[in-house]
């Protein structure tokens, strides 16, 4: 009985008892969710355009952040460092296409998936060899002051992160829907052969999409890095983005955003209100459980397209 109360009653009483605290928890959750969304976005972009489940997305975030920090440590001004990092990420996209993807055309998705895990190893090793593996602080000059609105404590940094995420998503949406390349990318996502037959070079598309994913990774890297320092564990947030994908669907940009928010908020609330009951640190798996439960009711995810099967 006590257990039932502890699980089903007490947390809600706590919430009702301190709405401001709840609001703060939700806001923290939303902001974490935004970060997840950023990483998930990278996944979605690549999956949507090339059907590759890019496990290296998390390491790309790390790699981008490491490069940026490394450049800044060597005295490069922020704006130039960011520009150079973007160039590095584009170069990386070329290299990945040239040395990996090109040779794996027409392979099973699982093989490509495995290759991206291999890629994750390579990027991680290269990044740490170049820039070292100690924790580094990243300061790109994002304001970080706290202020209060209606009794709720807010942080400028978080708002900035949310804003940049929103801008990024808007840009991507426009890119996908209103540019030739964007439409081409969508065509490729539907059918490689068909896309090839209308004359879109697969190579180009891969380079573009991996560059974009690299850029998104950089944005995510800046946010996460500025918040919690640049280190190896940054690549692990990729794992956190995966349940977001199940929730939002592998091919849906809005899904990634909304899924990220749901996971972020849900995870924080669960951790704060139910976590102590279970010994804490349930963040690690709660997102997955949430996603799984969700899947049972909506297997295609929030906005995922229905997969139609023929007999």
């Amino acid at each position, binding site marked *: 009985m006590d257990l039932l109360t502890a699980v089903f009653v007490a947390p809600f009483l706590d919430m009702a008892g301190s709405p401001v605290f709840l609001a703060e928890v939700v806001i923290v959750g939303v902001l974490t969710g935004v970060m997840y969304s950023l990483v998930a976005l990278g996944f979605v972009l690549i999956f949507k355009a090339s059907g590759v*489940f890019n496990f290296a997305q998390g390491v790309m975030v790390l790699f981008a952040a490491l490069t940026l920090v490394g450049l800044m440590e060597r005295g490069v001004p922020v704006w130039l460092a960011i520009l150079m990092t973007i160039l590095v990420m584009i170069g990386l996209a070329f290299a990945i296409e040239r*040395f*990996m993807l090109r*040779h*794996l055309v027409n*392979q*099973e*998705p*699982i*093989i490509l*998936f*495995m*290759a991206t*895990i*291999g*890629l*994750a*190893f*390579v*990027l*991680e*090793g*290269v990044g*740490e*060899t170049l820039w070292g*593996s100690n924790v580094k602080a990243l300061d790109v000059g994002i304001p970080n002051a706290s202020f209060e609105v209606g009794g709720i404590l807010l942080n400028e940094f978080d708002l900035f992160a949310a804003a940049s995420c929103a801008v990024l998503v808007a840009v991507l949406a426009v890119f996908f829907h209103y540019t030739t390349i964007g439409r081409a990318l969508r065509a490729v996502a539907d059918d490689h052969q068909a896309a090839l037959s209308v004359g879109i070079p697969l190579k180009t598309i891969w380079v573009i999409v991996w560059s974009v994913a690299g850029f998104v990774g950089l944005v995510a890297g800046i946010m996460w890095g500025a918040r919690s320092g640049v280190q190896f564990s940054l690549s692990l947030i990729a*794992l956190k983005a*995966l*349940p977001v*994908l*199940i929730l939002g669907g*592998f091919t849906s940009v809005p899904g990634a955003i909304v899924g990220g928010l749901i996971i972020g908020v849900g995870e924080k609330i669960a951790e704060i209100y139910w976590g102590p009951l*279970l*010994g*804490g*640190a*349930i963040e*690690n*798996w709660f997102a*997955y*459980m949430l*996603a*799984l439960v969700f*899947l*049972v009711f909506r*297997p295609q*995810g929030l906005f995922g397209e229905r997969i139609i*099967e023929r*007999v």
Partner: protein
Amino acid sequence: MIYREAGQFKTTYTADQAVFPIVQDRWFIAAVAFLALGVPFVANEYWLQVVLIPFLLFSLAAIGLNLLTGYTGQLSLGTGGFMAVGGYMTYKITTAFPDLNILVVFAAAGLISAGAGLVFGLPSLRIKGFYLAVATLASQFFLGWLFNRVGWFYNYSSSGTITAPPREILGIMVTGPEATAEVRYYVALAIVTVMAVAAKNLVRGRIGRSWMAIRDMDVAAEIIGIRPFRTKLLAFSISSFYCGVAGAMLVFLWLGSAETEAFDIVVSFDVLFMIIIGGLGSILGSFLGAAFIVLVPVLLTNAPQLFGLTMAIDLQKHIEVVLFGSLIIFFLIVEPNGLARLWQITKEKLRLWPFPY
């Protein structure tokens, strides 16, 4: 070239369906068995501990995952979690019932893993492919968390580690600090041999065909009367049983003690690498893949010394990681169907020698 099959005809279905219908293959297997039995007489402790025992237990885990992913087509990233169940449950059971034969304990722990597999296989009813793969990560993280956080599983020891207690079979110490590497090797060899044979038997019979049918075309499989849900769940349970026993071996026959880190997501990926590099849908491939993944780091670690090079430890570590990753990519490019396929091609060539086809 070495194959001389003329005159090897089969007069019964049993002979025709044998695992090794060709005499020369049987000789080869006999030679392998002889080597496997004889190797402790020539190998030192280092080889047994660093290469052979992990090779055996990871082969078993790879077989387990291969049953699920290679044969049934259900991609799983939760191998480490199921191995953890095996490791922790063995610990729990053998400390609770110290007199129970350790092999029985392994089996019991395997069964509990199978149960866990069953539960975490439930989503396979509704989802497939990468969705399912991500879902299986849930088991990885949840189980890892569970064994880390819930003291009951590690008997509330202060360090949070589980340690293999000394256990004997027929008066010979097989686990615990006093068990020699040789003994642990032989026990592992016995377990892996028996379970590999069982796996082979499963995949060449009705169940294997059901699994492969689901893998190749689940709609058609259902229409010829295969129950998809049941078949997938059976694959999840049996796969987890194998992984569970492998996890038990990892703690009890290899490391001696472990924390949840021993079963983290890297292990899941390693095992997945093993089956992909070894060959999806091949028992032999599971062994080849395990050998590859176990040996490559050993070689990479030892290579600099071999060439008389010295370098900073962490630099070496980083280079190792890069090389390992590159090797994986290189291998996937060169032979996406795995070592087993290479083996098969070689064998086919030898059978057709000197003809190309």
